[in-house]
Every structure is written in structure tokens, then in C-alpha cells.
């Protein structure tokens, strides 16, 4: 990759090179891991579950448990019904979860396994749940898989009793445990009673105790998921990630929702906080105002390092849109904005942002890949690359400062503990970005220009 990418861009219709997305089931697995006492189950060949678990383990540096139907040739010819029956029985017997969350794979989708029928025919132990969602790998990306699994839980479990539980449901989108913790901190400061769904904090960032627990303390609980139907409203964060499950909950249980930007950067966090303050009619606490002020203060302190610097941003759609907003707020120019997840809505939203902040000559693309991004960069270089670990080869080849954000990050530690959401998260991103730009300046400086105080 360091040497292969040519500058000349030619049309490719059939070949994906260096993808900026992966397939649905891993997203479904991540959503299911955000439910307390839940075992994700992959209905397909063993490889899928193995790859997804490995992928999640590499990003979170945590065990990611999931069982598999272990398809063989027989199952792919005669259907996976008996594998699933045996599988579910074995999972309850041996791993004893409260819920098994099944997602399909391209294989089980294509042979036409009817999961609804299979599950209806099963003997499910008293008080336990089996839910499912369809996640054909040949549609969309891991982001689709993530919200499809959320929808699966809602379809099977959410109930409306007709009596409000006074809570606001928060759909946090495809974010890290650190981000979820930050959201919860803000919600508590704003005194909003809430249900976070899903909630991987405590699970994918579980503390070291010397004891291993297959189901760590965190996660959205069964009563909380059932209770989604009695929530006052839903704040669906991430326009391209959280709408589908919010929609399903509204149709099923008449819970209204607000579709919001993922709160990355000043303006999006402001909107989130204002929305919360409308829920409780409470003043915004000084603590949050102070954090916002600090964030603005630091951006001001360092603004000449950011001003008019060109950035290439890639990753998951809502994360990329959030980061785009943040860099625009910092005075930077999001020259290239790319997601691998298909959907033209992404391009429209990105173009709106370019217009709102009055920047021109920026390119946004959905369903793109990193080979093309690399070609763009070869044609017009950027000052900063912002995205997942897969950007590191481009960054090295083109000698561009590189800041990691998004999913997956395979070559750093503790990133998933620290937020990029909220004012605190933005402050962290500002620090990382400034650090990367200044490190490069230092590295390239001649002895005469090299300074301690910058």
C-alpha cells in the first residue's frame, strides 16, 4: 500500500480496494454486547464469529464473547434450523445468559433461514429471551448491523404499558464505552432520568479485578429494554445510525423521538445539552458551562495552528460528520470527507456543513474506500488525516500527521476509554490534533527554528 497507489484516478466499478467499512454482523455483535447478561450468537459459519470477536478484541482490548451455529456443508444445504436449536440450548445450558441475541450472516440469509419461525418453535427457559435480527453482510455496513440489532431488541422486548416511566431513552450510536460514560455524566449533571441503549460501558471497558466474568456489570438491563416502550421520548444520536430503531420504537410503542447529531464538537454538544434542559426545564449547570468555556478557550489559544489547515476525515458516517463539524469549528478545512457505509444522505449532510461554514472545494463521498482517499491526497495533500487505524499507511506514505478516532483502532491503547463526545471529548480531540500538528512541526524544524515554547 505504501507504494502501490497511483496518482491518476481511474474509474473502478467492481473492485473495492482497502475498504472503509466492514460487514453487518460485527455491528450487531457490538450492539448485543451492550446488553446486560446477553450472549451474542452468530448464525453462520464459525469464521464469522471468530473474525468479529477478534476484531472487537483488537479494538477494545477486551474479551468479546459470542457463540456460533457452526455451519457445515449439511446446514448450508438443509438449512440451519437444527444448528440453531442445538446452539441455543447449548448456550443456555453452558453459558447461562439472560438473553441470546442472534444475528444472521450472509450465508444463513442466502439459504433463506427463517429465524422468526425457528425461534417461535423453540423451548426458551422461563424468564429468558431469544431475540434476532437480520444482518446480511452484503447490505450496508457494520453500522446497519448495529442499528438492526437494536431494532431486534426493540421488536422482541419493548413494551408499552400506557404509563410513562418518566425516562428519556438515549440511543448513543456506534461509539466507544468512554463516549457512553461521558453521555451519562452529562445526563446526570442535567438531572435527566434516562435509559442508555445499548450501553457497552462496564462491559467493553471492564476493570481488572483478577476475576473473569463472562457478563460484566454493565449493559442495558432487561427491564430497561422492556421499559423503552414506556419512555417519555427518545434522543436518537447520530442521524445515520439511530433513526431506524427510534422509528421502530415509535411505531411499536408510540414513543416520540428527536433525531440529533452525534454530539461531537461545540455546536452539536450545545444542541444536545439544550435538548436535555428542555426535558427537565432545568438550568444548565455551571460545570458544563465551564467545560464549554474551557474548550473554546483552548481552541482560541491554539487557533493559529488550526486555521485553514486541510484535513481528510474517514470512518463511520456519524462519527465522520461529527469530526467534520468539530474541525470546521476549529477553523480547519475538511478537504476530504469519506465513509465506506453506503447512503447518499451522508454526502448531503456533509455538503450542508461545507455550506454552513462557507468552505469550498471539499469533497464528500459515501461508499468510498481508502485507496481512493489516498489518490485524492496524492493529488492535493492535506495537513492532517483523521480516522481509524487503517489510515496509518497513508499517513506514513504521504508524511501526514495522523490522529486516530472512530472504529476500529487496532494500534493504540486506552482510546476506547476516552471520549470524543461532549465538551470533554472535543477538548481531547483538540489536544490530539494540536499535538499531532506540532509534533510534525518539531520533527521537520531546522535547528534554528526549533523552539521549546510554541
Amino acid at each position: 500500500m505504501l507504494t502501490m497507489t497511483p496518482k491518476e484516478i481511474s474509474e473502478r466499478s467492481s473492485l473495492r480496494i482497502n475498504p472503509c467499512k466492514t460487514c453487518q454482523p460485527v455491528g450487531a455483535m457490538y450492539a448485543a454486547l451492550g446488553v446486560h447478561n446477553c450472549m451474542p450468537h452468530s448464525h453462520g459459519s464459525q469464521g464469522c464469529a471468530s473474525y468479529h470477536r477478534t476484531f472487537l478484541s483488537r479494538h477494545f482490548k477486551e474479551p468479546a464473547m459470542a457463540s456460533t451455529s457452526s455451519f457445515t456443508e449439511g446446514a448450508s444445504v438443509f438449512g440451519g434450523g437444527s444448528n440453531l436449536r442445538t446452539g441455543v440450548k447449548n448456550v443456555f445450558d453452558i453459558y447461562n445468559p439472560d438473553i441470546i441475541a442472534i444475528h444472521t450472516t450472509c450465508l444463513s440469509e442466502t439459504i433463506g433461514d427463517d429465524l422468526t419461525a425457528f425461534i417461535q418453535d423453540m423451548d426458551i427457559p422461563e424468564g429468558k429471551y431469544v431475540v434476532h435480527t437480520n444482518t446480511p453482510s452484503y447490505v450496508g455496513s457494520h453500522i446497519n448491523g448495529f442499528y438492526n440489532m437494536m431494532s431486534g431488541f426493540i421488536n422482541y422486548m419493548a413494551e408499552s404499558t400506557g404509563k410513562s416511566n418518566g425516562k428519556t431513552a438515549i440511543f448513543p450510536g456506534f461509539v466507544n464505552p468512554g463516549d457512553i460514560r461521558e453521555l451519562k455524566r452529562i445526563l446526570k449533571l442535567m438531572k435527566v432520568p434516562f435509559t442508555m441503549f445499548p450501553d457497552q460501558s462496564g462491559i467493553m471497558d471492564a476493570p481488572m479485578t483478577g476475576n473473569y466474568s463472562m457478563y460484566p456489570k454493565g449493559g442495558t438491563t432487561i427491564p430497561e429494554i422492556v421499559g423503552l416502550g414506556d419512555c417519555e421520548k427518545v434522543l436518537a444520536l447520530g442521524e445515520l445510525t439511530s433513526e431506524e430503531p427510534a422509528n421502530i420504537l415509535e411505531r411499536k410503542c408510540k414513543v416520540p423521538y428527536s433525531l440529533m447529531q452525534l454530539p461531537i464538537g461545540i455546536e452539536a454538544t450545545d444542541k444536545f445539552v439544550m435538548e436535555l434542559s428542555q426535558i427537565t426545564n432545568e438550568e444548565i449547570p455551571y460545570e458544563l458551562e465551564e467545560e464549554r468555556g474551557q474548550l473554546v478557550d483552548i481552541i482560541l489559544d491554539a487557533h493559529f495552528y488550526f486555521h485553514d489547515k486541510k484535513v481528510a476525515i474517514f470512518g463511520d458516517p456519524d462519527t465522520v460528520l461529527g469530526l467534520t463539524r468539530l474541525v470546521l469549528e476549529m477553523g480547519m478545512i475538511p478537504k476530504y470527507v469519506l465513509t465506506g457505509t453506503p447512503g447518499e444522505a451522508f454526502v448531503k449532510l456533509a455538503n450542508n456543513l461545507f455550506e454552513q461554514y462557507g468552505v469550498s472545494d471539499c469533497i464528500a463521498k459515501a461508499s468510498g474506500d481508502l485507496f481512493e482517499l489516498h489518490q485524492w491526497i496524492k493529488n492535493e495533500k492535506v495537513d492532517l488525516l483523521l480516522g481509524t487505524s487503517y489510515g496509518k499507511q497513508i499517513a506514513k506514505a504521504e508524511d501526514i500527521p495522523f490522529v486516530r478516532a472512530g472504529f476500529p483502532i487496532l494500534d493504540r491503547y486506552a482510546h476506547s476509554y476516552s471520549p470524543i463526545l461532549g465538551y470533554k471529548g472535543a477538548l481531547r480531540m483538540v489536544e490530539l490534533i494540536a499535538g499531532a500538528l506540532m509534533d510534525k512541526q518539531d520533527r521537520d524544524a531546522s535547528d534554528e527554528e526549533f523552539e521549546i515554547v510554541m
Partner: protein
Amino acid sequence: MTKSLILEERKDFIKFGFEKTGKTAIKCESNSVSGAVSQRACVYCGARVVLNPITDAFHIVHGPIGCASYTWDIRGSLTSGSDLYRNSFSTDLTEQDIVFGGEKKLSAAIDEVVKKHNPKVIFVYATCIVGVIGDDVEAVCRHAEKEHGTRVIPVKSPGFSGNKSYGYKMACNAILELLKPHNDIPKTHGVNILGDFNLAGEMWIIKNYLNEIGIPVISTITGDACYDNIIKAPSARLNLVQCAGSMTYLAKKMEEKMNIPFIKVSFFGIEDTTQSLIRIAEAIGTEENIRKAKQFTQSQTDRLIPMLEKYKSRLEGKKAAIYVGGGFKAISLIRQFNQMGIETVVVGTQTGKPEEYEIITNLVSENAVILDDANPAELEAFMKEKDADILVGGVKERPLAYKLGIAFCDHNHERKHALAGYEGVINFTKEINQSINSPVWDYIKQKTEF
């Protein structure tokens, strides 16, 4: 308590050191139980890990994006030439392709590759779904080969068509296909190394050793391999099989078709490395080669012993658990641990063979537990029961070990330094020491009194 965690169907896959072979031999080489959290992967995975290190090949994954994404640049195989293999190529099949078939898209993808990059060889991996929708990948490849005059080789690897071992076999078939036009080239003096993937540069270490004792290396399969080099493989006089699990099949076929005998070797640990080098010299070398091999291995051993002694005091009496892909590696590891004064108390593999389990059973103590295709719950239960201090495994086992408060050593794709050869012994010993004796263990709540 342990026993209750084990499914009835799993009981025959688990044995203890005192149960010697014969009737009570461990069950292996069968499919996993549905519903288990298996550590195993699929046919495609097996094929991919074997072929991917061929550095100047285009590896096109024909299927939905996931299969290509998850295997993008994860192998840790280093290159001294092209870095083409570190890219990820896929046909990224979408719904429409599933309905109407993916052959056209594959064909177009190959055209796009050829037009732009003029490659010497393209491997096309058929994934699960391609097996089901019935794309005739072979026909597409054959046609492309004719049209472009470049090698386009199908790899029959639908995930469900067996297990990871079957994928190794499919990869070997693809290599045989690549070698076919060259099967009858004249023999020259030298060996092929089969089943080293140049993780952390291990192939280079082994090549250096063979160079030291005067044995020429013709081809390396597949660590740091390139097309021009790999097609010379049929001219070798001997094959060295290092990863027995993946390469014995290829070696047997090469013996049959190209008249090249093979020996199995291992370069993990002093004992195995020394024995292997001497055996290689004896198999193909002159008296001079044998003398050099004995001299070289002796000097290396002499160099290492004082270093190992230094570490021994910090390691002696510790207990190890092993969970690796193949049985051959497990055997080498048990021997290495013995030399360090560490007892192996749990040993499992994903794809071990009966004869390997037999050796394992004879190597471990009576109390050791032996598992085939173990799942995390079993690993956890037995590591706790046997009070293991360190686990040697792969990427999925790492966080599990840490969470249990057990040290860890990666002996798979993610090893960051060479574990093969004499250099590997030093690295391995240091790593085991570093992990077992890390100060961080002092801070784990369970061991701390508040």
C-alpha cells in the same frame, strides 16, 4: 465444579495426562458443537492465512466486504520485496450481486486489476456466499487467465465447507496449481521451506541458519515469497515442513508430483532448532554441512545456556497453559517450557491431529489437561483449576488471560518479535519473564489487601 461446565458432547475432546492413548485417545478433527464459543475460524481463514504472505500476489476476496476487511493486513508476515499483499481487495458483493450472481463483477474486478497493475498472479478466494449462489469461480478464473495471459487461480474456500484445516488444503491446492506448469523443471541442490510465514521476520532467521551450514534455499512457502521465486520450488531436492498442520498435504503432493521428499522440522526452542538443523544437513548435505551444522548449533546453544540460567530462577516452578492452532507448535512449546523449568498444565489446539496429541500426552505430566477445540469457558475453568501462571495463545485468548489475572504470550499472528530459532528462544524467554513478573500483578485487587 469444572466438570459441570463441560457439555456432554465435548467430553471426548478433553483428556488428562494420565489417560494414555489407545482407546481413550482424544477426539479431534471434527466439527465444533453448535452453540459453543469456539476459538476456531473457517475454511476461508485457513486458506487466506496460508496464501496471504505471497507478497506480490493480488488477493481478491470474492464475497461481501467483511471477509476482506477482517483479514486485511493482519498476518504480521514481513516482506523484503513487494508490499502488494498488505492491501485488501474485494468484490464487495451487494444484494443485487447475490440475486443475479457475482460472476460478472468478479470478472470485471480481475480486468480492473490487470489493466492497472499488470500482476503476475491473482488469487481469487471464494467465500461462503459464493458457494451458495453458485458462481463458477473456476470458469471466471480460467477465462481471465486466457484473456490476460496472467495466472488467475481460484481458491475454493467457502467458510462452511469444512474447518480451518480444510482451508489450508485449499490453499495448498492453489499453490500446486501455480506450480503446475513448472513441475518438471530440472532439480538443483537446495531445499524449500514450507510452512513458515515470516511472522516478525522468522523466515529470515531460518534462512540465515541454513546459509550458515551451507544449505541453499530455493523457495519459501509462503513467508516472504514472490511469484518468480515460488515457481522455482519444483527444482528443490528436499522440502522442509515447518507448520505441519498447513503444509504436510502440500509436501506429500510435491513428493508425488515433483519427486521431492520432505522432512518435518521445528524451529521453536533450542532442542527442536538444533535437531532440525542437524537433520536437514544429514538429509541433504555433505559431511562438511553436517559438521558445520553440529558446530553452529553447539555454539548457539553454548551462547544461550548462560542466559537461560539467568532467567531460570525467575521462572522455575511456574505453570503454563498453551492454546494454539496446531499440535506441532504445542509440542515445541511444551519442550521449551520444560527447559525453562515451567510445567505445562493445560494444552489445547484448534486443529491438532491424533498423532500430535499422542506426543503431547507423552510429554506432559499426569495432571495436565489436554483439550481439542476448547472454548473460553473450558480454558477458563481449567486454567483456574490448574492454577496456570501464563497462557500462550492468539489474539482472542489475550484479554481472557489478562482478565483472569494470568500472564500472556502471543504465539500467533500478533507476535512482534521472532520466536523462532535461537534468537526466538531469547525473545520467548524474555517475553515470558516480562509477562509473568510484571509489576502490574501486584496491583490486582484480589492479590492486594486493603
